[in-house]
């Protein structure tokens, strides 16, 4: 018989006014940090963790998860409204959220954002609750060779899905991988491609890359194209736009469920970050959509896919963290840090001996996702006024705050020049028709791919057959190959059809 007493105990904690108040405070902090470009909710979590010393562990969990749950929605607000992601994970919300804003449909986009956040987290929570007892064996089926194929599939999928010139997409991804290999590799124990510079030993910093490619490139675009942030406020019809967007999410159950499933799975499999899972969900949404050509141009399906995946992924990351005591991602690592900070040892024993803590974690993350998102709605209207501000006023604020955010991560002044460099790279790639998205996904998957590649070859004693040994590897490799063949063949067919039409 399933014992519900720890569930009621966890919910009972929330009924305490001080706990509820702390969760809401966590939501507010998470939203504020999430909105600030380059700062992100992770910093808020680290900053406020020491403050919880001496608190009851359950109370601290509600507060910290309050921050964690709200920050992703906070980060998606500036991504949708001004094309500057609050955090790296929110970059994918730009692709369709920002074009909707430019069309004057900001409130509709925010409505979609809110509902897909809530539903993604809810679906993720349901899956986590259902899978928690049985997940340990399943995760162990994925060895390095299988995980290598997962990384490769992610890259090919996004290259194909980005449309336009496939070769540009693929080469952008490959360049991203090469950038990720710069510096000291802790897996292999060598430093590469550093040009003799000490600074490059640590490799290209993720935050510099993201702030450069998105925020700085955007500042250059703002100032040179002199475009208004929005075609302004025709879409601002109070809550009607929000309601319309929120309801619209229910008309896309396929995208919602698929992306939530991908997000949850990405959370479960160690190493697949929230950003990668959001991009993979996005590319899968393109594959399955009837309106493929509208992606990157303000397709609500893209926004649903990205947001549902991000929030489901947060829930999914609880499984390896709680079940095995291993961080599946940054979010998982933060959760583990919080547990250890309060003297709790994550792992199978936690599941057995501390069910109250486990349920407090699951429920707090889910409920704070819902509350944080709803709370963010009140901020949304206020933040949307940013769009009435002239671009030339926004540009220096974005530049100064973004570069300061880059510095705050590890206090290295050279990181801001790295961000400026990637700003120019992003601007050039955009103008040349190279999808920045494949560059980013390549960068994210590069180090993962190398780690799994190295581990697999070590296990296989150098024999490449290791990559085709297991049914899972073969299946993932087969799916990757089929995707490439299928899309290229359909491309060739469409060319022939077009040629035939011209002849007729």
């Amino acid at each position: 018989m399933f014992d519900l007493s720890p569930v009621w105990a966890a919910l009972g904690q929330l009924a305490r006014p001080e706990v509820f108040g702390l969760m809401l405070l966590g939501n507010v902090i998470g939203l504020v940090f999430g909105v600030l470009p380059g700062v992100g909710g992770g910093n808020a979590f680290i900053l406020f963790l020491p403050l919880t010393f001496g608190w009851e562990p359950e109370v601290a969990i509600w507060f910290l998860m309050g921050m964690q749950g709200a920050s992703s929605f906070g980060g998606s607000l500036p991504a949708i409204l001004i094309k500057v992601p609050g955090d790296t994970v929110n970059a994918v919300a730009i692709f369709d959220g920002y074009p909707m804003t430019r069309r004057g449909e900001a409130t509709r986009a925010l409505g979609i954002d809110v509902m897909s956040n809530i539903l993604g987290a809810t679906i993720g929570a349901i899956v986590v609750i259902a899978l928690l007892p049985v997940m340990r064996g399943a995760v162990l089926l994925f060895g390095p060779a299988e995980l290598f194929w997962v990384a490769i599939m992610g890259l090919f999928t996004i290259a194909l899905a980005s449309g336009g010139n496939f070769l540009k997409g693929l080469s952008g991804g490959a360049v991203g991988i090469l950038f990720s290999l710069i510096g000291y590799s802790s897996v292999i124990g060598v430093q590469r491609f550093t040009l003799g510079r000490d600074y490059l030993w640590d490799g290209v910093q993720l935050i510099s890359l993201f702030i450069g490619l998105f925020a700085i490139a955007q500042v250059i675009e703002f100032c040179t194209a002199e475009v208004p942030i929005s075609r302004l406020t025709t879409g601002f019809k109070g809550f009607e736009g929000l309601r319309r967007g929120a309801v619209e999410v229910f008309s896309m159950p396929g995208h919602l469920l698929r992306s939530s499933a991908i997000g949850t799975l990405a959370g479960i499999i160690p190493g697949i970050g929230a950003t990668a899972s959001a991009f993979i969900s996005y590319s899968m949404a393109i594959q399955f959509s009837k309106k493929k050509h509208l992606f990157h141009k303000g397709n609500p399906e893209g926004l649903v896919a990205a947001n549902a995946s991000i929030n489901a992924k947060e829930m999914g990351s609880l499984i390896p963290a709680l079940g095995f005591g291993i961080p599946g991602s940054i979010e998982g690592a933060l959760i583990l840090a919080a547990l250890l900070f309060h003297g709790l040892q994550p792992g199978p024993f936690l599941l057995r001996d501390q069910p109250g803590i486990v349920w407090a974690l699951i429920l707090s993350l889910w409920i704070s996702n819902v509350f944080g998102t709803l709370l963010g709605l009140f901020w949304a209207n206020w933040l949307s006024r940013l769009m009435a501000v002239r671009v030339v006023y926004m540009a220096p604020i974005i530049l100064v705050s973004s570069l300061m955010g880059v510095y705050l991560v590890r206090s290295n002044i050279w990181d801001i020049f790295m961000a400026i460099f990637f700003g120019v790279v992003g601007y050039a790639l955009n103008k040349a028709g190279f999808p920045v998205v494949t560059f980013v996904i390549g960068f994210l998957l590069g180090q993962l791919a190398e780690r799994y590649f190295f581990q697999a070859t070590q296990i296989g004693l150098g024999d490449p057959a290791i990559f085709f040994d297991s049914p899972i590897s073969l299946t993932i490799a087969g799916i990757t190959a089929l995707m490439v063949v299928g899309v290229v063949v359909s491309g060739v067919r469409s060319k022939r059809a077009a040629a035939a039409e011209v002849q007729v």
Partner: protein
Amino acid sequence: MTSRPWQRVSFWVILALLAFALIIALSSLGLKRDAKALPQLVSFPLLAVLVLLLVGEFVPRVQRFFTISWLPAATPGSDNLDEAEGKELERELEEVEREETAGEVLLSDIPWRLVSLVFLGIVLYGVMVLAAGFVVAGLVFTLVFVKWYGGATWQGSLLLGVGTVGVMVALARLLAVDLYPGMLFGGKLPPF
């Protein structure tokens, strides 16, 4: 395509990427086996793909062969679309096609003077941070940018500068991170 390859931005970006891939490929030759496996697995095929892209700049047919368009899959009138969806898609399709045909960016399309000015401004801001730190550089940059580029009043520019820097300083305090004070005020440079 009526323009010549070297008149297009994409041509020069492909050349830059080729140079980058070539440097990585050549540098990886001297590495030990494990360290060069993935770099070579990626860089050599990348070189081939970039050469193909370069050829495509001269021979448009090559480029078109690899251009994946999602449009046929969503062509109006296909079985899985109702009439309303078909009309909507038809309208959207026309818009997309217009955008795609106008998508090629020529070097002459780039407002070089403005781009150079903005880029120089950003680099100058970075140098100012190095010299005088985040607080002074942030304040000066915002003030100057908003006043001269944006045409705002002195008071408005100052308010925006102080507000922006103030928030960032408060955040840094909260995170217990010392903002870089600048070399003029005793800041030390980390190794480069």
